[in-house]
């Protein structure tokens, strides 16, 4: 190690050199510090000024009140109810565990809710509050207010929740609102979506009318400390509530029809034939949309999705059914247009041989003409006439009158069904149209699928003689409605035949309106669901035929048209027609309609609201049992 003896001279030299190095290192670090300080305060000044400002100023977003949905007469369908809610501001929490424990006790929160709160707290950003509970009962809210001083970070608020006075009766029409999902936030990056208590339309009109009913959020700009203590209030901005949207719906009719459907599974659409206004838009059974706006429980969701009557399905927009014999009036118009003489006699012996297959009718109707074929719903007549006419032209006429047609309605997703024709068949299945296709189509079976809106549009067009279009919103500009390209005499003939169905010896005489001077015209339909099952009465509900009825009234001066389908209801005359009859009665005489409804509801175990409340209680009990 030692090359030469080290003397104090060496040591002194070493000292000076080491001091130079040491001093140099200090200077270098000093320069680095000055450089860093300059970089932060000059180059990055703007960036950090913004961050400092966003630290200082916080915006407390006040979610806007949602616009109301009202019916054609201004009767509220969807409104806002003031409620109590509790939020947490994570930054202000001093003892998170202690606070959460106290909250759980005061607000009676279950483990599910606690898990969600903990998850939200972990994900919360900045000053964003986290929801603890909504719809807090007043007693709990008051108990919390008393203990508030010892619970920093807990923010009790008064908020608004969506309320649907008609409950399940309007469920599928309005849909429901719910808390925006993470994906919905990612899509819009709208901070409002993170505000507790803010709800967006998730289904139905609530979803499609979202831009109108949302409104603009208000906010209070405040200066806050890091602990969230308010220092001073800066310029506040009031929220602007969403627009009120007026629907064409008649809320009374809607509710009556929904109640009249009882325990059935089905859909009913009522329409004003002159304007196309949809007066009722009923799909039953349904959920209670109020459950959704409060955040539906797992048990309720499970019970709803497991119900074989599919209460979560919007049958009006998404249910597709064979039209059954309800297609016959449109068929008759198609035949008339193609030159079939309505008085031409046809002998129905109970069936028709087409190719190598014998099509059997329900009954041997004997000698019929077009009028009595409609009146008695004689399949053989329509098979025979269908074979004498051009199936392409026939289909076009039926389609023109509404079946299989698409409508421009503010409904999130609609299915329009099919009105099959030779060209459609060629395109879709690459095969020739056969005689049996004509036969099936003539009685609304085979490929024919219609939705319940079409079931109302078709009679409305026949009744009014115009190409009326369905409407749901009052505000939309009305286009002039062109007359149908159909001979008025033909229309008159078919209308008379339809009047006979209800009022003479037809299939729906039992459903004659109990009103003086108002006759209903209509057509029953019974759609085969299960090919080999015995027609009509089946012990297995799911195998029974669908019952359909289309009608309009008054028969001589039509104002209203109704289409109705009752799933697995048996004969159209037995299930669907009476419902249409009572619903139609409501439009002319509410008292008589309710008088007819009362004994039925007694039989079903209460009104829709009563049964719904009982169902919700049952769900709550099940939920409690599950969690215990």
């Amino acid at each position: 190690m030692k090359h030469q003896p080290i003397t104090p001279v060496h040591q002194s030299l070493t000292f000076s050199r080491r001091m130079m190095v040491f001093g140099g290192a200090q200077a270098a670090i000093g320069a680095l510090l000055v450089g860093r300080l300059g970089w932060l305060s000059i180059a990055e000044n703007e960036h950090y000024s913004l961050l400092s400002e966003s630290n200082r100023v916080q915006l407390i977003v006040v979610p806007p009140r949602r616009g109301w949905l009202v019916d054609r007469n201004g009767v509220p369908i969807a409104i806002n109810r003031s409620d109590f809610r509790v939020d947490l501001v994570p930054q202000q929490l001093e003892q998170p565990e202690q606070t959460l424990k106290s909250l759980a006790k005061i607000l009676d929160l279950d483990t599910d809710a606690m898990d969600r709160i903990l998850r939200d707290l972990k994900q919360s950003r900045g000053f964003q509050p986290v929801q603890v509970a909504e719809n807090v009962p007043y007693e709990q809210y008051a108990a919390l207010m008393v203990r508030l001083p010892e619970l920093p970070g807990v923010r009790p608020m008064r908020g608004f929740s969506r309320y649907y006075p008609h409950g399940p009766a309007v469920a599928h029409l309005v849909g429901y609102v719910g808390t925006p999902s993470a994906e919905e936030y990612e899509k819009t990056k709208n901070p409002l979506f993170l505000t507790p208590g803010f709800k967006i339309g998730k289904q139905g009109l609530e979803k499609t009318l979202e831009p109108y009913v949302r409104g603009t959020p208000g906010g209070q700009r405040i200066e806050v400390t890091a602990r969230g203590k308010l220092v001073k209030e800066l310029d506040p901005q009031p929220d602007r509530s969403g627009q009120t949207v007026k629907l064409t719906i008649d809320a009374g009719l809607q509710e009556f029809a929904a109640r009249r459907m009882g325990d059935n599974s089905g859909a009913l659409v009522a329409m004003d034939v002159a304007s196309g206004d949809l007066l009722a838009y009923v799909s039953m059974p349904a959920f209670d949309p109020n459950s959704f706006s409060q955040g539906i429980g797992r048990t309720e969701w499970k019970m709803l999705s497991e119900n074989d009557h599919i209460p979560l399905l919007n049958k009006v927009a998404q249910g597709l059914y064979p039209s059954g014999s309800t297609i016959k009036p449109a068929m008759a118009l198609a035949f008339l247009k193609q030159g079939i003489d309505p008085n031409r006699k046809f002998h129905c012996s109970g069936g028709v041989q087409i190719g190598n297959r014998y099509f059997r009718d329900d009954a041997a109707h004997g000698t019929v003409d077009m009028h009595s074929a409609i009146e008695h719903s004689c399949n053989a007549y329509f098979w025979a006439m269908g074979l004498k006419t051009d199936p392409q032209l026939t289909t076009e006429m039926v389609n023109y009158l509404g079946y299989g047609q698409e409508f421009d309605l503010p409904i999130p997703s609609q299915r329009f069904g099919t009105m099959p024709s030779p060209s459609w068949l060629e395109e879709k299945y690459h095969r020739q149209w056969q005689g049996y296709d004509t036969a099936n189509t003539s009685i609304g079976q085979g490929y024919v699928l219609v939705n319940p809106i079409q079931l109302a549009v078709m009679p409305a067009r026949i009744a009014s003689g115009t190409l009326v279009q369905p409407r749901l919103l009052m505000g939309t500009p009305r286009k002039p409605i062109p007359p149908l390209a159909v001979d008025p005499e033909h229309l008159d003939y078919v209308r008379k035949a339809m009047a006979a169905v209800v009022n003479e010896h037809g299939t729906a005489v039992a459903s004659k309106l109990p009103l003086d001077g108002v006759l209903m015209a209509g057509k029953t339909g019974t759609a085969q669901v299960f090919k080999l099952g015995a027609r009509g009465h089946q012990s297995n509900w799911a195998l029974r035929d669908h019952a359909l009825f289309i009608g309009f009234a008054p028969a001589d001066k039509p104002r209203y048209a109704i289409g109705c389908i009752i799933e697995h209801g048996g004969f159209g005359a037995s299930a669907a027609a009476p419902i249409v009859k009572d619903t139609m009665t409501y439009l002319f005489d509410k008292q008589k309609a309710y008088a007819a409804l009362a004994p039925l509801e007694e039989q079903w175990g209460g009104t829709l609201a009563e049964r719904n409340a009982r169902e919700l209680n049952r769900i709550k009990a099940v939920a409690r049992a599950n969690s215990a």
Partner: protein
Amino acid sequence: MISSAIIPQPLAKLPWRLIFLIVILACVGLLTLYSAAGGSLRPWALKQGLTFLFFFAVAISMSWLRESTLKSVAFPIYIVVFVLLVGVELLGFVGKGAQRWLEIGPVKLQPSEFMKPVIVLVLARFYDLLPPSAIKSWRAIWPAALMLFIPAALILVQPDMGTALMVILIGASVMFIAGIPWWIFAGAAGALAAAAPLAFALMHDYQRKRVLIFLNPEADPLGAGYHVTQSKIAIGSGGIFGKGYLQGSQSHLDYLPEGHTDFVFATMVEEWGLIGGLILIMAFYLVVRWGMRVSMNARTRFSQLTAAGLTATIFFYVSINLMMVMGLAPVVGVPLPLVSYGGSAVMTIMLSLGMLMALERQQRTGSGISSLRIPA
């Protein structure tokens, strides 16, 4: 030095330039603490002012100490502080948890704080005693290393990483200035790099987190990276001229944690801007330069090494703190001397300055055999 007939001799002989700098730094500190308390003398500014005055008086009186006195007390004081450190360790075990203080009546003593100037004294004394010819032998290294690393390890397990790091850096500086072979330092740096994973494994969870956050502060802006993030916001948002005195939103609205202790520089720069920051850095630079001059002008090996080591103490305090608050180093808990609230750092700095002033006075008076240069 002010030489005037009007001023009495003892006063005129004080290093006025240094005193002026120290008072400026202390005033900046007091102003900032006044602002950090939201424009109030309580709870920090008043107490800090009194602490400063007390230790300032201590430092001034220390300036009459003789180098021979310092030399003679080096080893005894080292042993006392070492015993206190061990004592803290034992009591800390009894008290369950990290305990850095010994409470003697109303006085809280933090022995690790004393260790900073004391390690300088003892190492300077050691190299003073070592024959010049032995400087490149193992005899120059292992006793110094033991004297340095045992207390550093004791401090590290308290746990007080900042102080342990400071003690090691200060001791290493003295050893470097003393002239032990440079490859020892290169080797130590290499070994440190190699041992980093091991050290990382031995760290406390919060320390490990700090290192990780230092490497990637954006990973957790609201968690462990919060301090540095908010500190950078405070400094960066101040701009060139600052937001104005008592106008800093970051500190006044509590976004800046520890705005009166470790992060006091951010509090100050937010209000006084780049200009204020530069003035403060310049003042510290002048203090360090003054100390380095004392070392360069020293006539004995002991005073050379002591002055350099004490200056290094001040330098490391300032540079580690500033690097920490500006996001250039992990947050290790080193205060900014004379500015941060808290008596410990004020005490250490003033004791160091007192000794530096004593050494400087010796140079000027040039009296005493001990101050004689050993002839070449």
